[in-house]
């Protein structure tokens, strides 16, 4: 895919993060431009998920800097609300709120966090659920939905905050193979509309098709990155080669 890319929206500089003595991120730098679709691939435990959690301040970093849409994430006086309404996050385990219906899940944050008008939010929520093809299940509880359906509701829930960047943390890893596709279609549509997307994924075919840039991480560092055709077709680093040989 080729798109016209302009200003940098997410920027990481020498980010490090340790859990106790274990160094998860050892100096990660990357730039994500507006409208860019970035896929992060790499073996388990290479710090991919932690990286995403650092970007929306779910996990504090040890050193370096992260800037999202002009907001310095590592700032002690960080306005978490301002940051998180700009960055949507979808998790591997969907994490819908089980005591609320699909529609309520989508409506909660805009109403209670952004204090938006309930009727306006309802219209937006229904529109978003229809967008991910879950309009018919608006009144179902998460427990009544399949994994793929829950994940699509989770995407709609994040979109309801009207974020500028969407992050997807292995969102298809826990799904049945037959429901993976419906989730990937929803993500692809978002990307095509120009949403800035950062995906951690094991779906190499999908990464190749959708990404503008693919990053390969291993043991807390970015080993190699580039356009998918280049990274998948002609990996330079031996570690990338070994990883891709194993997976493809």
């Amino acid at each position, binding site marked *: 895919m080729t798109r016209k890319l302009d200003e940098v929206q997410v920027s990481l500089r020498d980010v490090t993060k340790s859990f106790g003595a274990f160094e998860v991120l050892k100096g990660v730098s990357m730039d994500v431009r507006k409208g860019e679709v970035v896929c992060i691939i790499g073996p388990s435990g290479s710090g991919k998920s932690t990286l995403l959690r650092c970007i929306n301040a779910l996990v504090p970093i040890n050193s370096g800097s992260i800037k999202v849409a002009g907001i310095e994430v590592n700032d002690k006086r960080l306005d978490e609300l301002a940051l998180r309404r700009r960055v949507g996050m979808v*998790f591997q385990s969907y994490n819908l709120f089980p005591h609320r219906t699909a529609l309520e899940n989508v409506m909660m944050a805009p109403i209670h*966090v952004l204090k938006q008008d309930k009727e306006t939010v309802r219209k937006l929520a229904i529109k978003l659920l229809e967008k991910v093809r879950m309009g018919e299940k608006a009144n179902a509880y998460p427990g009544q939905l399949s994994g793929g359906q829950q994940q699509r509701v989770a995407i709609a829930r*994040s979109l309801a905050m009207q974020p500028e960047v969407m992050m997807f943390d292995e969102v298809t890893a826990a799904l049945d193979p037959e429901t993976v596709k419906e989730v990937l279609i929803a993500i692809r549509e978002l990307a095509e509309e120009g949403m800035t997307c950062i995906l951690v994924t094991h779906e190499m075919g999908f990464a190749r098709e959708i990404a503008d840039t693919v990053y390969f991480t291993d043991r807390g560092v970015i080993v190699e990155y580039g356009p998918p055709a280049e990274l998948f077709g002609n990996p330079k680093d031996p570690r990338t080669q070994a990883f891709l040989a194993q997976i493809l």
Partner: protein
Amino acid sequence: MTCKATKNSQGLQFGGTMPVLHPVRLPHKHFCPYSGVPYVNFHIWHGVLLIATLALVVTASASTGDQGRLGIWDTLVKWTPLLLSGFSVNLLMSIAAMAIGTVFGVILGLCQISLMPQIRTGSWLLTQIFRNSPWLVTLFYVMYVIPFEFDLFGTRIALSDWSKATFGLSLPVMANVSEIVRGGVQSIPAVQWEAARGLAFNHRQTLWMIILPQAAKRMLPPWMNLYAILTMATVLGNIVGVTEALTLTREIIAAEARTDLLLPLYGYVLLMFFLYVFPISRLTIYLERKWAVDA
């Protein structure tokens, strides 16, 4: 699970019966997962056994009884209104102690999950003290610590024994409710907190709108179980001078001066408690089992 393979000339093949995972009835837990209190688990046959024993005792006593005295059944019927009035005191104490204990227990439980370490430690300590003390000792302590009357802005307010005993019983209830709240909240997966924070909910909003509504469902069976235990514990009021069912039973026995009434009367009171606690116990076990699966 059944797995039946039929063998024909071609070798081993699955016939009409394929392996099927049948729905299983999960065993309920024997202990409340948060407060560690054992579940009161009455079965219908407990009641059958109780009634059968009572009937046997009454019949046996009646056959050996002297002539000219009121029969056992008639004596029981005669004293039933008084016993029920005593039993209603037990119920009143149980409801009041549960209400007080729940209000303070919820507050204490929320303090146990506070973000401030001092509040957390303090409330934890308070919870542990009252949760691990014998109920009767706490009860005695409260009876002697609280004066029988006190002045409130010049008005003399007398405190009855039953209200003091109720307060004494509400303390261990408070501590157990505190543990149920803490355990219930902590049983909600951490990813729910993460998802809420990712949607820009603050700590308070997350707790009240996302975590507590889910936890409340898990807290209900242990809370109901606690009520069943408390109801049975209200007879401790007998020791500290409250005129409740057991106190009246002893007074009736003394008044009648008949030893053949001992077993029937105590059995009768036992039956009253059983009939009240039994449905609560069954409902608790039912909810515990039902919600454990989809929680």
